[in-house]
């Protein structure tokens, strides 16, 4: 589904990613783990063009990442951020409806129907009308996941989805990720906490100083 070949990214003379080659399979959950600063978030952000890279290539489905394909690739892969990035001036429901309405041009009723269903799926039906500032961190992250899913992406990229949460909230989000994994959602999860992905991931990549240090089954790689 996503193939990365010889990806190199330099930032202010420092090599952040050094000839990284890795593949993420359709219908599988992949984990990228490593200490902070190892380049794992940068790798993820290169996939949907939030970050530019210097050498190598990335292919998402049939499309090679580049300026001309950026918009289509972003429609194919959804993204969830560590700091949620919910739109502060919109309710939870409006956050989820926003892109289907204005990017996919769905009718208001269709967008609403989809958003209502997704909020139910992440267990937030009762918080539909709440604004981000009224939600806990865990609730915000679950809204963010619903928002990304509302675009019906072929894959979901999650950048440290639980790093800003306390253990209790973390469990809420992990539960949602588990159920998505069971449904066969293609996911790439970046985290510095192996415990988060141990029960979910089918495949794990360990990054160290911008290079692939290990790759394989989570049980083997994540000790």
């Amino acid at each position, binding site marked *: 589904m996503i193939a990365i070949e010889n990806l190199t990214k330099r930032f202010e003379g420092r090599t952040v990613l050094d000839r990284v080659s890795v593949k993420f399979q359709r219908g599988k959950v992949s984990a990228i*783990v*490593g*200490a*902070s600063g190892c380049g794992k978030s940068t790798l993820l952000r290169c996939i*949907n063009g*939030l970050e530019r890279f210097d050498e190598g290539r990335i292919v998402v489905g049939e499309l090679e990442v580049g300026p001309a394909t950026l*918009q289509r690739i*972003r*429609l194919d892969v*959804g*993204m969830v*951020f560590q*700091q*949620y*990035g*919910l*739109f*502060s*001036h919109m309710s939870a429901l409006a956050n989820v409806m*926003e*892109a289907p309405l*204005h*990017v996919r041009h769905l009718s208001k009723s269709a967008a609403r129907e989809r958003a209502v269903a997704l909020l139910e799926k992440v267990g937030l039906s009762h918080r539909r009308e709440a604004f*981000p*500032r*009224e*939600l*806990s*961190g865990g609730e*915000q992250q679950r809204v*963010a996941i619903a*928002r*990304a899913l509302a*675009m019906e992406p072929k894959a979901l990229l999650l950048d440290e989805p639980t*790093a*800003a*949460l*306390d253990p209790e*909230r973390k469990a809420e989000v992990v539960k949602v990720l588990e159920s998505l994994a069971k449904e066969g959602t293609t996911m790439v999860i970046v985290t*510095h*906490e*192996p*415990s988060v992905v141990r029960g979910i991931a089918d495949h794990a990549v*360990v990054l*160290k100083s911008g290079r692939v*240090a*290990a790759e394989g089954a989570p049980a083997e*790689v*994540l*000790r």
Partner: protein
Amino acid sequence: MSAAAALACLLSLLLAPVGCSRPETPAGKGLERIRAAGVLRWGGDTQGGEPYVYDDPAKPGHLVGFEVELAAAIARELGVRSEFVQNDWSNLVPSLERGTFDIVMNGLEVTDARTGRVLFTRPYYVFAERLMVRSEDAPKMRSPDVASLKGKRVGTLSNSLAFEMLRGTADTVIYEGVEEPYTDLLRGRTDAVLLDDIIATRYGVTKAGLEVVGDLRDGYYAIAVRPSEPEVKAAIDEALGRIAARGELRKILEGSHIWNARQERLASWSAADQAEMLGQPPPPPAFGPAHVVLFLKGAAITLLVSVLAMAIAVPLGLFLALVRMYGGPAARFAASAYVEVYRGTPVLLQLYLLYYGLAPVLKLGALTAAVVGLGMNYAAYEAEVYRAGMQAVPKAQMEAALALGMTTRLALRRVVLPQAVRHAIPNVTNDFIALLKDSSLVSVITVVELTKQMTITAIDVRTWLGPGLTCAALYFAMSYPLGILARRLERKLEGERNEEDAAPEPPMPPTVGVGT
């Protein structure tokens, strides 16, 4: 001292000068003071000062002019030397009252309003109120009088004799300088200019396309002295009499090429002539409801100019902020340059350039120029307000929008701008309050707004207290509710921000070691 008492103290300081009485010198002490100091300090303005008092073009820093020579001659008669004190022309009389100098001698016309306020010596020049129009209009204006100017736009200087003559007849356009009335007449912004013959000769007749159609009446330049110092007036009267009698005054006036038959009377000036010159000025009108109506009109102009200027500043500022943050390199540079230039130069200068400087290529009406000038100036400030507002929107929201497949334009419109505008509203409201007060600057381009109306009325009724307090009350009535609104919006926004901060976001846990 409690804060309230301190505030009351500060407030009274602010208001005190409005009702301040002039410094009283005991009778006879003024002349003693001048003689003890050995110097006669006289006030005037060198701006547009030719031929009165101006910088010698051949010798910068050295003053010349017929009033310079006359001041020297009078000082010599008093046994002292003369010293010029530069002062904004429109504030010469208030400065005299405050004691900034001993006398005013700067083409100060004997008017009813001034006669009630200062002591006038015998005149040193007899001028004519000269009417000028564009050459093509001259044939229609044979033997003009004041009545024939009814409903016409006539330019003149504020608080001048012409201004008093035109009151209630013409639609008077008030200028601060002597050059601008004639350039505006030439460009068709006014129908005529009524000013002293000396000014008309130097600044009007020199312009091709303008023509003199007649003199409406005679007037006098005399020296103004504080009412508490009649002995100074008496001494100067005697000095002037001697200077005129021995033909020295004639020589001085001839030196500046302004001697004519009208001046013959100056040498034999009698008490009867003086009484006739001063006339029987009617008592000043009391400050009353009629003036308040004028003030309300002035306040309406102030509000109109401010609202329309803000209506330009807000969208233009938003556009500049967007270009500065998301435009290409050239556009970004242009927008930054706009902001820096407009913030780095005085708005007064910008208004001057827009109204007078651009007039040969772009002839804006005074009100239009005021609105556009203030609007373009405030746009620079609003641009910064919106830029701060956009920067206050967390970067993650913009990235999330892009990741959802939005274009930058859509993300700005749907996500960043609605929040940036909310962040900006309190500051925009505060800027509007500042604009309300800054709008008083547009009087330099002949717009009569609240402050200008106040100064006109204050001179008319010969007190600053009533007009000053009324004017302050009107500004306050306009700005105070807006101030409350701005604070309320600020508090609301702050409350929302605090709620956001209260959302649980524990620090990052220590990194867990991973296998290699």
